[in-house]
């Protein structure tokens, strides 16, 4: 599966939860939200090998 965040892309094997995948790439699950096909995913959703996950930063605006 692919994870996209800002201008970086990570390739990971599938079948991990959203939360675990975010931690695996070194990000804090508290700081991001995950989307798949334009829909928000909860932390416990299992990501499939063919998925492309887009991460969005929680903090914005300043």
């Amino acid at each position, binding site marked *: 599966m692919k994870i996209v965040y800002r201008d970086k892309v990570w390739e990971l094997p599938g079948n991990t939860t959203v939360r675990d995948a975010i931690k695996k790439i070194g990000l804090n699950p508290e700081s991001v939200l995950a989307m798949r096909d334009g829909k928000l995913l909860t932390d416990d959703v299992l990501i499939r090998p063919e998925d492309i996950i887009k991460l969005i930063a*929680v903090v*914005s605006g300043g």
Partner: protein
Amino acid sequence: MRQHRLALCSEHFLAWVPQQVQRAIERYHMFTPDERVLVAVSGGKDSLSLWDILLRLGYQVEGIYINLGIPDSGYSDISQQKVEQFAAQRNAPFRVVNVKAEYGESIPEVARRKRGRNVCGTCGLVKRHIMNQAACEGDFAALATGHNLDDEVAVLFQNALHWATGYLGRQAPVLPASHPKLARKVKPLIRLYEREMAAYALVRGIDYIYEECPYSRGATTLFYKQLFDQLEQASPGAKQQFYLSFLQARTEGRLLLPEADTVKMGECKRCGQPTTAPELCVFCRLWDAEDITE
């Protein structure tokens, strides 16, 4: 949401968030349904979501957007466009104050000329003045801003690091109107995590400006937020606990904070807003021709 030991589907989440806001409005006596509320909106996720929620809850709200004239990455243009789009979709009343059109200079311009490089300080001063003036002149019962729990935690942490007891005494969900020309200021999103607000905006389909303000890069509060995200990951509920326990400790008199000196305030000779200065308030002095760095 580990902090609440709660997992919700999108339908119930969209109902849960406004319930939390309603609870905060009642618990802290922010305003009643028959009072008119002015909501400060920036085009960001918190303020647009707040506006959406207050409309859904049936409150009498009007938005105010302040165009700061920040040209970098089209920041001001894009954020204004998000606000206009939001309002058009909902037929929601709002007003725009364009700083450059009204006062002659944009925030970056006046900050550069009068206040060294202190853009953020200048921006805060200008926004607060304009919002307050609009709330008072429009006869609104309260001025609402989209500050969320993460915002308050970052500020509380900063105040605690410096033991700024003056600020610690005044940080609250509601600031009552302490002067006839000062509006009551309320923060209805105070109990909501920034992550919950971002999720709300996304699930609700609210189109907000995603980019951070170009001047916020390296801001200390953003750093504190990162620190608290780490703490929260290790200890779910930490942000909530920190802030709510603080409020409780202060209410119960368990914090030794000095008595606030009542500051004598006069009125600015030009705009009539409250000020401690003898002649013109600091806002009006900004627009004067002298290039004095404050």
